[in-house]
Protein backbone atom coordinates (compact mmCIF):
# COMPACT_ATOMS: atom_id res chain seq x y z
CA UNK A 1 0.00 0.00 0.00
CA UNK A 2 1.55 3.31 -0.94
CA UNK A 3 1.63 5.96 1.73
CA UNK A 4 -1.16 8.42 1.08
CA UNK A 5 -4.03 10.16 2.73
CA UNK A 6 -5.65 8.27 5.56
CA UNK A 7 -8.48 6.15 4.29
CA UNK A 8 -6.72 5.43 1.03
CA UNK A 9 -6.29 1.84 2.09
CA UNK A 10 -9.63 0.94 0.56
CA UNK A 11 -8.24 1.76 -2.87
CA UNK A 12 -4.79 0.30 -3.18
CA UNK A 13 -3.02 1.99 -6.05
CA UNK A 14 -2.16 -1.19 -7.79
CA UNK A 15 -2.63 -1.87 -11.47
CA UNK A 16 -4.44 -4.97 -12.63
CA UNK A 17 -1.25 -7.02 -12.64
CA UNK A 18 -0.27 -6.04 -9.18
CA UNK A 19 2.48 -3.63 -10.19
CA UNK A 20 2.65 -1.04 -7.50
CA UNK A 21 2.81 2.45 -8.85
CA UNK A 22 5.82 4.03 -7.25
CA UNK A 23 5.12 7.30 -5.49
CA UNK A 24 7.74 9.38 -7.18
CA UNK A 25 6.20 12.86 -7.00
CA UNK A 26 5.45 15.03 -4.03
CA UNK A 27 2.16 15.31 -2.21
CA UNK A 28 -0.73 16.55 -4.27
CA UNK A 29 0.83 15.82 -7.67
CA UNK A 30 1.22 12.19 -6.69
CA UNK A 31 -2.32 12.17 -5.30
CA UNK A 32 -3.57 13.33 -8.70
CA UNK A 33 -1.55 10.66 -10.51
CA UNK A 34 -2.89 8.02 -8.12
CA UNK A 35 -6.50 9.10 -8.66
CA UNK A 36 -6.12 9.22 -12.44
CA UNK A 37 -4.46 5.80 -12.34
CA UNK A 38 -7.62 4.35 -10.86
CA UNK A 39 -9.67 5.30 -13.90
CA UNK A 40 -10.44 2.47 -16.30
CA UNK A 41 -7.77 1.82 -18.92
CA UNK A 42 -5.42 4.47 -17.53
CA UNK A 43 -1.98 3.03 -16.91
CA UNK A 44 0.75 4.64 -14.83
CA UNK A 45 2.30 6.38 -17.81
CA UNK A 46 -1.01 7.79 -19.03
CA UNK A 47 -1.87 8.94 -15.49
CA UNK A 48 1.41 10.81 -15.31
CA UNK A 49 0.89 12.35 -18.75
CA UNK A 50 -2.63 13.55 -17.90
CA UNK A 51 -1.46 14.89 -14.52
CA UNK A 52 1.24 16.98 -16.16
CA UNK A 53 -1.19 18.18 -18.79
CA UNK A 54 -3.44 19.40 -15.98
CA UNK A 55 -0.50 21.02 -14.16
CA UNK A 56 0.40 23.04 -17.24
CA UNK A 57 -3.16 23.80 -18.34
CA UNK A 58 -4.94 27.13 -18.11
CA UNK A 59 -6.58 27.44 -14.64
CA UNK A 60 -9.95 28.22 -16.28
CA UNK A 61 -9.82 24.94 -18.23
CA UNK A 62 -9.04 22.99 -15.09
CA UNK A 63 -11.86 24.68 -13.19
CA UNK A 64 -14.26 23.76 -15.99
CA UNK A 65 -13.10 20.14 -15.86
CA UNK A 66 -13.51 20.00 -12.08
CA UNK A 67 -16.96 21.56 -12.30
CA UNK A 68 -18.19 19.22 -14.98
CA UNK A 69 -16.94 16.22 -12.98
CA UNK A 70 -18.99 17.33 -10.01
CA UNK A 71 -21.93 18.24 -12.21
CA UNK A 72 -22.04 14.85 -13.91
CA UNK A 73 -22.19 13.14 -10.53
CA UNK A 74 -24.95 15.49 -9.50
CA UNK A 75 -27.11 15.47 -12.63
CA UNK A 76 -26.34 12.45 -14.75
CA UNK A 77 -28.41 9.36 -14.24
CA UNK A 78 -29.54 6.39 -16.25
CA UNK A 79 -32.62 6.31 -18.44
CA UNK A 80 -35.48 4.54 -16.64
CA UNK A 81 -36.39 2.63 -19.79
CA UNK A 82 -33.21 1.76 -21.65
CA UNK A 83 -30.42 2.31 -19.11
CA UNK A 84 -28.57 4.81 -21.30
CA UNK A 85 -26.89 7.77 -19.67
CA UNK A 86 -29.44 10.55 -19.37
CA UNK A 87 -30.22 13.87 -17.69
CA UNK A 88 -33.91 13.08 -17.28
CA UNK A 89 -35.98 10.04 -16.43
CA UNK A 90 -36.03 9.19 -20.15
CA UNK A 91 -33.01 9.66 -22.35
CA UNK A 92 -33.13 11.73 -25.55
CA UNK A 93 -33.55 8.62 -27.70
CA UNK A 94 -36.39 7.08 -25.68
CA UNK A 95 -38.13 10.46 -25.52
CA UNK A 96 -37.93 10.99 -29.29
CA UNK A 97 -41.26 10.00 -30.96
CA UNK A 98 -39.55 9.81 -34.38
CA UNK A 99 -37.57 6.75 -33.32
CA UNK A 100 -38.85 3.39 -34.54
CA UNK A 101 -40.62 1.92 -31.50
CA UNK A 102 -40.73 -1.60 -32.95
CA UNK A 103 -37.00 -2.22 -32.91
CA UNK A 104 -34.55 -2.45 -29.99
CA UNK A 105 -30.78 -2.65 -30.24
CA UNK A 106 -29.32 -4.39 -27.17
CA UNK A 107 -25.83 -3.23 -26.15
CA UNK A 108 -23.50 -3.86 -23.22
CA UNK A 109 -22.65 -0.29 -22.24
CA UNK A 110 -23.97 3.23 -22.72
CA UNK A 111 -20.87 4.03 -24.75
CA UNK A 112 -22.00 1.39 -27.25
CA UNK A 113 -25.20 3.40 -27.83
CA UNK A 114 -22.99 6.29 -28.89
CA UNK A 115 -21.00 4.00 -31.18
CA UNK A 116 -24.14 2.70 -32.93
CA UNK A 117 -25.66 6.21 -33.13
CA UNK A 118 -22.56 7.44 -34.94
CA UNK A 119 -23.21 5.01 -37.78
CA UNK A 120 -26.65 6.64 -38.37
CA UNK A 121 -27.77 3.22 -39.59
CA UNK A 122 -30.18 2.50 -36.78
CA UNK A 123 -33.43 4.37 -36.13
CA UNK A 124 -34.90 2.30 -33.31
CA UNK A 125 -34.49 2.26 -29.53
CA UNK A 126 -31.76 0.84 -27.32
CA UNK A 127 -31.42 -1.34 -24.27
CA UNK A 128 -28.23 -1.16 -22.18
CA UNK A 129 -27.50 -4.42 -20.33
CA UNK A 130 -24.78 -3.01 -18.10
CA UNK A 131 -22.15 -5.55 -19.17
CA UNK A 132 -21.89 -9.11 -20.46
CA UNK A 133 -22.30 -12.48 -18.76
CA UNK A 134 -18.88 -13.38 -17.38
CA UNK A 135 -19.09 -15.99 -14.62
CA UNK A 136 -15.36 -15.81 -13.84
CA UNK A 137 -15.83 -12.15 -12.97
CA UNK A 138 -18.89 -13.03 -10.94
CA UNK A 139 -21.33 -11.57 -13.49
CA UNK A 140 -24.34 -13.78 -14.20
CA UNK A 141 -27.55 -13.07 -16.16
CA UNK A 142 -29.28 -11.75 -13.03
CA UNK A 143 -26.62 -9.04 -12.71
CA UNK A 144 -27.60 -7.54 -16.06
CA UNK A 145 -30.75 -5.64 -17.09
CA UNK A 146 -32.25 -8.70 -18.79
CA UNK A 147 -35.51 -8.83 -16.84
CA UNK A 148 -35.98 -5.13 -17.67
CA UNK A 149 -35.59 -6.01 -21.35
CA UNK A 150 -38.18 -8.78 -21.06
CA UNK A 151 -40.68 -6.39 -19.50
CA UNK A 152 -40.17 -3.93 -22.38
CA UNK A 153 -41.18 -6.71 -24.77
CA UNK A 154 -44.33 -7.74 -22.96
CA UNK A 155 -46.80 -5.44 -24.78
CA UNK A 156 -45.90 -6.76 -28.24
CA UNK A 157 -44.86 -3.42 -29.77
CA UNK A 158 -41.31 -4.56 -30.34
CA UNK A 159 -40.94 -6.93 -33.28
CA UNK A 160 -37.19 -6.87 -33.83
CA UNK A 161 -34.19 -7.18 -31.50
CA UNK A 162 -30.64 -6.54 -32.65
CA UNK A 163 -28.19 -8.04 -30.18
CA UNK A 164 -25.12 -5.83 -30.50
CA UNK A 165 -23.05 -7.19 -27.62
CA UNK A 166 -19.27 -7.17 -28.10
CA UNK A 167 -17.91 -9.69 -30.63
CA UNK A 168 -15.89 -11.55 -28.00
CA UNK A 169 -16.53 -14.71 -25.97
CA UNK A 170 -18.56 -12.99 -23.24
CA UNK A 171 -20.55 -10.91 -25.72
CA UNK A 172 -21.35 -13.94 -27.88
CA UNK A 173 -22.39 -16.00 -24.85
CA UNK A 174 -24.65 -13.17 -23.70
CA UNK A 175 -26.24 -13.06 -27.15
CA UNK A 176 -26.75 -16.84 -27.01
CA UNK A 177 -28.41 -16.55 -23.62
CA UNK A 178 -30.74 -13.77 -24.76
CA UNK A 179 -31.74 -15.46 -27.99
CA UNK A 180 -32.72 -18.58 -26.05
CA UNK A 181 -35.62 -16.65 -24.48
CA UNK A 182 -36.37 -14.22 -27.27
CA UNK A 183 -36.81 -16.85 -29.95
CA UNK A 184 -39.97 -18.09 -28.25
CA UNK A 185 -41.53 -14.63 -28.32
CA UNK A 186 -42.05 -14.35 -32.06
CA UNK A 187 -39.51 -11.56 -32.33
CA UNK A 188 -37.00 -11.28 -35.18
CA UNK A 189 -33.55 -11.58 -33.59
CA UNK A 190 -30.46 -10.47 -35.45
CA UNK A 191 -26.84 -9.95 -34.58
CA UNK A 192 -24.60 -7.50 -36.45
CA UNK A 193 -22.25 -9.36 -38.79
CA UNK A 194 -18.69 -9.85 -37.59
CA UNK A 195 -16.01 -9.72 -40.12
CA UNK A 196 -12.89 -8.28 -41.53
CA UNK A 197 -11.87 -4.83 -40.38
CA UNK A 198 -12.22 -2.41 -43.27
CA UNK A 199 -8.77 -1.37 -44.39
CA UNK A 200 -7.12 -4.54 -43.09
CA UNK A 201 -5.31 -7.30 -44.95
CA UNK A 202 -7.08 -10.64 -45.40
CA UNK A 203 -3.91 -12.62 -44.75
CA UNK A 204 -3.68 -11.30 -41.19
CA UNK A 205 -7.25 -12.22 -40.25
CA UNK A 206 -7.48 -14.91 -37.60
CA UNK A 207 -9.54 -18.06 -38.12
CA UNK A 208 -12.52 -16.98 -36.01
CA UNK A 209 -12.84 -13.57 -37.63
CA UNK A 210 -12.42 -14.93 -41.13
CA UNK A 211 -14.85 -17.76 -40.37
CA UNK A 212 -17.49 -15.29 -39.19
CA UNK A 213 -16.88 -13.11 -42.22
CA UNK A 214 -17.60 -16.09 -44.48
CA UNK A 215 -20.66 -17.01 -42.45
CA UNK A 216 -22.06 -13.49 -42.90
CA UNK A 217 -21.05 -13.07 -46.54
CA UNK A 218 -23.39 -11.16 -48.82
CA UNK A 219 -24.13 -11.25 -52.52
CA UNK A 220 -22.33 -8.63 -54.58
CA UNK A 221 -24.45 -8.97 -57.73
CA UNK A 222 -27.98 -7.64 -57.45
Amino acid at each position, binding site marked *: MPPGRPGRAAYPVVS*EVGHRLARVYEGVVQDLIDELGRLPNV*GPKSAQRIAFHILQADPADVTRLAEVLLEVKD*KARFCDRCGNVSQDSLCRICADPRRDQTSICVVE*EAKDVVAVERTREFRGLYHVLG*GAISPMDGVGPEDLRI*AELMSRLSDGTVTEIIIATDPNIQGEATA*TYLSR*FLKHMGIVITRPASGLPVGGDLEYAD*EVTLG*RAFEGRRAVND
Partner: protein
Amino acid sequence: MGACHGEPGPLVGENASVPLYRDEAVVLRTHKLGEADRIITLLTRNRGLVRTVAKGVRRTRSRFGARLEPFMVIDIQCYEGRNLDTVTQVETLAVYGDAICRDYTAYTAATVMVETAERLCEEHEPATQQHLLLVGALRSLTGGEHDPSLVLDAFLLRSIAIAGWAPSFYDCAKCGAPGPHRAFNIAAGGTVCTVCRPPGSAAPAPETMRLLASLLSGDWVIADGSEARDRREGSGLVSAFLQWHLERGVRSLRHVDRDGTRPPAPPRRTLPLKAAGAHEDGVDLAAVVPPLGSHPALDRHLGATQPDVREPV
Protein backbone atom coordinates in the same frame (compact mmCIF):
# COMPACT_ATOMS: atom_id res chain seq x y z
CA MET B 1 -1.95 -19.15 -42.65
CA GLY B 2 -2.67 -18.33 -39.09
CA ALA B 3 0.61 -16.97 -37.86
CA CYS B 4 0.68 -13.48 -36.58
CA HIS B 5 3.30 -11.14 -35.37
CA GLY B 6 2.64 -8.71 -32.59
CA GLU B 7 4.06 -5.30 -32.11
CA PRO B 8 7.82 -5.36 -32.35
CA GLY B 9 9.44 -6.53 -29.15
CA PRO B 10 13.12 -6.33 -28.35
CA LEU B 11 15.42 -7.50 -31.09
CA VAL B 12 15.28 -11.14 -30.26
CA GLY B 13 17.74 -13.19 -32.23
CA GLU B 14 20.16 -10.31 -32.34
CA ASN B 15 20.10 -9.98 -28.60
CA ALA B 16 20.54 -13.42 -27.11
CA SER B 17 20.09 -12.07 -23.59
CA VAL B 18 16.30 -11.86 -24.02
CA PRO B 19 14.91 -15.30 -23.17
CA LEU B 20 12.40 -16.35 -25.75
CA TYR B 21 10.27 -19.45 -25.51
CA ARG B 22 7.56 -21.26 -27.39
CA ASP B 23 4.83 -23.46 -25.97
CA GLU B 24 1.36 -24.81 -26.55
CA ALA B 25 -1.26 -23.14 -24.40
CA VAL B 26 -4.95 -22.73 -23.60
CA VAL B 27 -6.17 -19.19 -22.98
CA LEU B 28 -7.83 -19.22 -19.56
CA ARG B 29 -8.79 -15.61 -19.15
CA THR B 30 -7.95 -12.08 -20.14
CA HIS B 31 -7.77 -8.76 -18.31
CA LYS B 32 -7.65 -5.32 -19.82
CA LEU B 33 -4.38 -3.51 -19.32
CA GLY B 34 -3.78 0.13 -20.14
CA GLU B 35 -5.36 1.52 -23.26
CA ALA B 36 -5.15 -1.28 -25.81
CA ASP B 37 -3.35 -4.21 -24.17
CA ARG B 38 -4.50 -7.29 -22.34
CA ILE B 39 -2.98 -9.61 -19.81
CA ILE B 40 -3.55 -13.14 -21.04
CA THR B 41 -3.51 -15.97 -18.50
CA LEU B 42 -2.43 -19.20 -20.18
CA LEU B 43 -2.17 -22.81 -19.14
CA THR B 44 0.85 -23.96 -21.10
CA ARG B 45 1.89 -27.49 -21.78
CA ASN B 46 5.39 -27.18 -20.38
CA ARG B 47 5.48 -24.16 -18.08
CA GLY B 48 2.22 -24.34 -16.16
CA LEU B 49 0.40 -21.06 -15.69
CA VAL B 50 1.86 -18.12 -17.56
CA ARG B 51 0.73 -14.51 -17.50
CA THR B 52 1.68 -12.63 -20.56
CA VAL B 53 0.97 -9.23 -22.08
CA ALA B 54 -0.56 -8.97 -25.55
CA LYS B 55 0.22 -5.49 -26.77
CA GLY B 56 -2.39 -3.70 -28.84
CA VAL B 57 -4.68 -6.76 -28.86
CA ARG B 58 -7.83 -4.70 -28.22
CA ARG B 59 -7.37 -2.60 -31.33
CA THR B 60 -9.68 -3.69 -34.14
CA ARG B 61 -6.73 -4.10 -36.43
CA SER B 62 -4.58 -6.09 -34.01
CA ARG B 63 -2.99 -8.98 -35.80
CA PHE B 64 -3.64 -11.17 -32.77
CA GLY B 65 -7.36 -10.92 -33.56
CA ALA B 66 -9.40 -13.57 -31.77
CA ARG B 67 -6.38 -15.82 -31.19
CA LEU B 68 -6.01 -14.73 -27.58
CA GLU B 69 -9.65 -15.10 -26.55
CA PRO B 70 -10.59 -17.53 -23.75
CA PHE B 71 -10.77 -21.26 -24.68
CA MET B 72 -8.41 -20.86 -27.68
CA VAL B 73 -5.71 -23.50 -28.00
CA ILE B 74 -2.62 -21.85 -29.41
CA ASP B 75 1.03 -22.20 -30.21
CA ILE B 76 2.57 -19.15 -28.62
CA GLN B 77 5.92 -17.44 -28.60
CA CYS B 78 6.79 -15.06 -25.79
CA TYR B 79 9.80 -13.36 -24.35
CA GLU B 80 10.27 -13.33 -20.63
CA GLY B 81 9.93 -10.08 -18.79
CA ARG B 82 10.66 -9.11 -15.22
CA ASN B 83 7.00 -9.23 -14.14
CA LEU B 84 5.11 -10.46 -17.15
CA ASP B 85 6.07 -12.15 -20.36
CA THR B 86 5.16 -10.54 -23.68
CA VAL B 87 3.49 -12.29 -26.60
CA THR B 88 5.40 -12.01 -29.85
CA GLN B 89 3.67 -14.58 -32.06
CA VAL B 90 0.54 -16.71 -31.91
CA GLU B 91 -0.72 -19.50 -34.11
CA THR B 92 -4.10 -21.15 -33.70
CA LEU B 93 -4.11 -24.86 -32.91
CA ALA B 94 -7.81 -25.29 -32.17
CA VAL B 95 -10.79 -22.96 -32.06
CA TYR B 96 -13.20 -24.10 -29.35
CA GLY B 97 -14.45 -20.77 -28.03
CA ASP B 98 -16.63 -19.97 -31.03
CA ALA B 99 -18.67 -23.16 -30.70
CA ILE B 100 -18.69 -23.01 -26.90
CA CYS B 101 -20.16 -19.51 -26.67
CA ARG B 102 -22.99 -20.48 -29.00
CA ASP B 103 -24.15 -23.03 -26.45
CA TYR B 104 -24.85 -21.26 -23.16
CA THR B 105 -24.65 -24.41 -21.04
CA ALA B 106 -21.29 -25.27 -22.59
CA TYR B 107 -20.09 -21.70 -22.00
CA THR B 108 -20.88 -21.78 -18.29
CA ALA B 109 -19.24 -25.23 -18.00
CA ALA B 110 -16.12 -24.02 -19.82
CA THR B 111 -15.74 -20.99 -17.56
CA VAL B 112 -15.72 -23.25 -14.50
CA MET B 113 -13.09 -25.43 -16.19
CA VAL B 114 -10.71 -22.58 -16.94
CA GLU B 115 -11.19 -21.05 -13.51
CA THR B 116 -10.49 -24.41 -11.85
CA ALA B 117 -7.40 -24.95 -14.01
CA GLU B 118 -6.13 -21.51 -13.01
CA ARG B 119 -6.68 -22.32 -9.36
CA LEU B 120 -5.13 -25.79 -9.40
CA CYS B 121 -2.01 -24.95 -11.42
CA GLU B 122 1.00 -22.92 -10.39
CA GLU B 123 2.96 -20.36 -12.36
CA HIS B 124 5.94 -21.86 -14.16
CA GLU B 125 5.39 -25.30 -12.69
CA PRO B 126 4.86 -27.81 -15.47
CA ALA B 127 1.26 -29.07 -15.55
CA THR B 128 1.17 -31.12 -18.73
CA GLN B 129 -1.58 -33.46 -17.51
CA GLN B 130 -3.83 -30.57 -16.50
CA HIS B 131 -3.16 -28.90 -19.85
CA LEU B 132 -4.07 -32.02 -21.82
CA LEU B 133 -7.13 -32.64 -19.67
CA LEU B 134 -8.39 -29.11 -20.27
CA VAL B 135 -7.82 -29.28 -24.03
CA GLY B 136 -9.69 -32.60 -24.15
CA ALA B 137 -12.59 -31.27 -22.08
CA LEU B 138 -12.96 -28.13 -24.21
CA ARG B 139 -12.92 -30.26 -27.35
CA SER B 140 -15.55 -32.52 -25.85
CA LEU B 141 -17.79 -29.51 -25.10
CA THR B 142 -17.70 -28.47 -28.75
CA GLY B 143 -18.38 -31.98 -30.00
CA GLY B 144 -21.79 -32.18 -28.37
CA GLU B 145 -21.47 -35.96 -27.83
CA HIS B 146 -22.08 -35.69 -24.10
CA ASP B 147 -24.16 -33.49 -21.82
CA PRO B 148 -21.94 -30.43 -21.08
CA SER B 149 -22.76 -30.88 -17.40
CA LEU B 150 -21.27 -34.42 -17.47
CA VAL B 151 -18.19 -33.17 -19.34
CA LEU B 152 -17.74 -30.53 -16.64
CA ASP B 153 -18.05 -33.01 -13.78
CA ALA B 154 -15.68 -35.46 -15.46
CA PHE B 155 -13.18 -32.64 -15.92
CA LEU B 156 -13.48 -31.48 -12.31
CA LEU B 157 -13.08 -34.99 -10.87
CA ARG B 158 -10.01 -35.73 -12.99
CA SER B 159 -8.51 -32.32 -12.40
CA ILE B 160 -8.84 -32.83 -8.64
CA ALA B 161 -7.37 -36.31 -9.04
CA ILE B 162 -4.35 -34.96 -10.96
CA ALA B 163 -3.87 -32.43 -8.16
CA GLY B 164 -3.51 -35.41 -5.81
CA TRP B 165 -6.96 -35.61 -4.23
CA ALA B 166 -8.55 -38.43 -6.22
CA PRO B 167 -11.91 -39.19 -4.61
CA SER B 168 -12.99 -42.75 -3.98
CA PHE B 169 -16.41 -43.91 -5.18
CA TYR B 170 -16.15 -47.58 -4.32
CA ASP B 171 -13.59 -48.71 -1.73
CA CYS B 172 -13.38 -47.01 1.65
CA ALA B 173 -11.37 -43.81 1.29
CA LYS B 174 -9.90 -44.23 4.77
CA CYS B 175 -9.10 -47.93 5.31
CA GLY B 176 -9.40 -49.26 1.77
CA ALA B 177 -12.07 -51.83 2.67
CA PRO B 178 -13.55 -53.04 -0.61
CA GLY B 179 -16.88 -51.43 -1.56
CA PRO B 180 -19.51 -50.70 -2.35
CA HIS B 181 -20.25 -48.58 0.71
CA ARG B 182 -23.34 -46.47 1.36
CA ALA B 183 -21.74 -43.52 3.15
CA PHE B 184 -19.96 -40.66 1.42
CA ASN B 185 -17.86 -38.06 3.16
CA ILE B 186 -16.11 -35.25 1.35
CA ALA B 187 -13.58 -34.50 4.06
CA ALA B 188 -12.69 -38.20 4.30
CA GLY B 189 -12.11 -38.35 0.51
CA GLY B 190 -15.18 -40.20 -0.77
CA THR B 191 -17.03 -43.38 0.12
CA VAL B 192 -16.42 -44.66 3.64
CA CYS B 193 -17.14 -48.02 5.27
CA THR B 194 -19.41 -48.35 8.31
CA VAL B 195 -16.38 -48.47 10.63
CA CYS B 196 -14.64 -45.36 9.24
CA ARG B 197 -17.79 -43.34 8.57
CA PRO B 198 -17.55 -39.91 10.26
CA PRO B 199 -20.77 -38.50 11.70
CA GLY B 200 -22.76 -36.42 9.23
CA SER B 201 -21.72 -38.43 6.17
CA ALA B 202 -24.07 -38.35 3.20
CA ALA B 203 -25.78 -41.39 1.73
CA PRO B 204 -26.05 -40.72 -2.00
CA ALA B 205 -27.85 -43.09 -4.35
CA PRO B 206 -25.70 -46.05 -5.46
CA GLU B 207 -26.41 -44.98 -9.08
CA THR B 208 -24.85 -41.58 -8.33
CA MET B 209 -21.68 -43.26 -7.03
CA ARG B 210 -21.61 -45.40 -10.15
CA LEU B 211 -21.99 -42.29 -12.33
CA LEU B 212 -19.18 -40.42 -10.56
CA ALA B 213 -16.88 -43.44 -10.76
CA SER B 214 -17.59 -43.69 -14.49
CA LEU B 215 -16.86 -39.97 -14.99
CA LEU B 216 -13.55 -40.31 -13.17
CA SER B 217 -12.51 -43.36 -15.17
CA GLY B 218 -13.96 -42.20 -18.50
CA ASP B 219 -16.65 -44.85 -18.89
CA TRP B 220 -18.96 -42.76 -21.04
CA VAL B 221 -21.44 -45.56 -21.76
CA ILE B 222 -22.48 -45.57 -18.11
CA ALA B 223 -22.26 -41.79 -17.78
CA ASP B 224 -24.35 -41.03 -20.88
CA GLY B 225 -26.98 -43.54 -19.78
CA SER B 226 -27.41 -42.02 -16.32
CA GLU B 227 -30.65 -40.52 -15.02
CA ALA B 228 -31.15 -36.78 -14.56
CA ARG B 229 -31.64 -37.06 -10.80
CA ASP B 230 -28.35 -38.96 -10.38
CA ARG B 231 -26.58 -36.36 -12.52
CA ARG B 232 -27.96 -33.61 -10.29
CA GLU B 233 -26.88 -35.35 -7.12
CA GLY B 234 -23.48 -36.14 -8.63
CA SER B 235 -22.94 -32.52 -9.69
CA GLY B 236 -23.69 -31.39 -6.16
CA LEU B 237 -21.11 -33.80 -4.73
CA VAL B 238 -18.49 -32.81 -7.31
CA SER B 239 -19.04 -29.11 -6.55
CA ALA B 240 -18.75 -29.75 -2.83
CA PHE B 241 -15.59 -31.78 -3.38
CA LEU B 242 -14.04 -29.02 -5.46
CA GLN B 243 -14.93 -26.30 -2.97
CA TRP B 244 -13.50 -28.40 -0.16
CA HIS B 245 -10.10 -28.57 -1.82
CA LEU B 246 -9.88 -25.00 -3.04
CA GLU B 247 -9.68 -22.47 -0.27
CA ARG B 248 -11.72 -19.79 -1.92
CA GLY B 249 -14.75 -21.00 -3.81
CA VAL B 250 -14.79 -21.24 -7.58
CA ARG B 251 -16.59 -18.07 -8.53
CA SER B 252 -18.16 -19.22 -11.76
CA LEU B 253 -19.59 -22.42 -10.26
CA ARG B 254 -22.83 -20.78 -9.13
CA HIS B 255 -23.54 -19.63 -12.67
CA VAL B 256 -23.42 -23.09 -14.24
CA ASP B 257 -26.47 -23.61 -16.39
CA ARG B 258 -27.11 -27.22 -15.37
CA ASP B 259 -30.36 -28.04 -17.11
CA GLY B 260 -30.55 -25.28 -19.68
CA THR B 261 -34.05 -24.17 -18.77
CA ARG B 262 -33.39 -21.42 -16.31
CA PRO B 263 -35.53 -18.36 -17.10
CA PRO B 264 -34.12 -14.88 -16.62
CA ALA B 265 -34.18 -14.00 -12.96
CA PRO B 266 -36.36 -11.13 -11.74
CA PRO B 267 -34.48 -7.84 -11.42
CA ARG B 268 -32.40 -7.47 -8.30
CA ARG B 269 -32.84 -3.75 -8.33
CA THR B 270 -36.27 -2.55 -7.38
CA LEU B 271 -35.45 0.94 -8.60
CA PRO B 272 -34.33 2.03 -12.03
CA LEU B 273 -30.62 2.63 -12.38
CA LYS B 274 -29.59 6.05 -11.24
CA ALA B 275 -26.24 7.67 -10.93
CA ALA B 276 -24.74 6.93 -7.55
CA GLY B 277 -25.30 9.76 -5.14
CA ALA B 278 -28.35 11.16 -6.92
CA HIS B 279 -30.45 10.85 -3.81
CA GLU B 280 -34.13 11.30 -4.41
CA ASP B 281 -37.27 10.63 -2.42
CA GLY B 282 -35.17 9.84 0.61
CA VAL B 283 -34.18 6.47 -0.86
CA ASP B 284 -30.72 5.33 0.09
CA LEU B 285 -29.36 4.78 -3.38
CA ALA B 286 -26.05 3.65 -2.01
CA ALA B 287 -27.85 0.47 -1.07
CA VAL B 288 -29.20 0.08 -4.59
CA VAL B 289 -26.45 1.32 -6.86
CA PRO B 290 -22.85 0.28 -6.30
CA PRO B 291 -20.46 3.18 -5.64
CA LEU B 292 -18.27 4.57 -8.38
CA GLY B 293 -15.48 2.17 -8.95
CA SER B 294 -17.79 -0.78 -9.13
CA HIS B 295 -20.50 0.44 -11.46
CA PRO B 296 -19.34 -0.67 -14.87
CA ALA B 297 -21.74 1.43 -16.92
CA LEU B 298 -20.99 4.74 -15.29
CA ASP B 299 -17.30 3.99 -14.79
CA ARG B 300 -16.75 3.23 -18.39
CA HIS B 301 -18.78 6.16 -19.53
CA LEU B 302 -16.79 8.55 -17.39
CA GLY B 303 -13.57 6.91 -18.54
CA ALA B 304 -14.39 7.20 -22.21
CA THR B 305 -13.80 10.30 -24.20
CA GLN B 306 -17.10 11.96 -24.98
CA PRO B 307 -17.83 11.32 -28.63
CA ASP B 308 -19.82 13.61 -30.82
CA VAL B 309 -23.47 12.62 -30.37
CA ARG B 310 -25.61 14.10 -33.07
CA GLU B 311 -29.33 14.34 -33.15
CA PRO B 312 -30.74 11.59 -35.31
CA VAL B 313 -31.74 12.84 -38.72
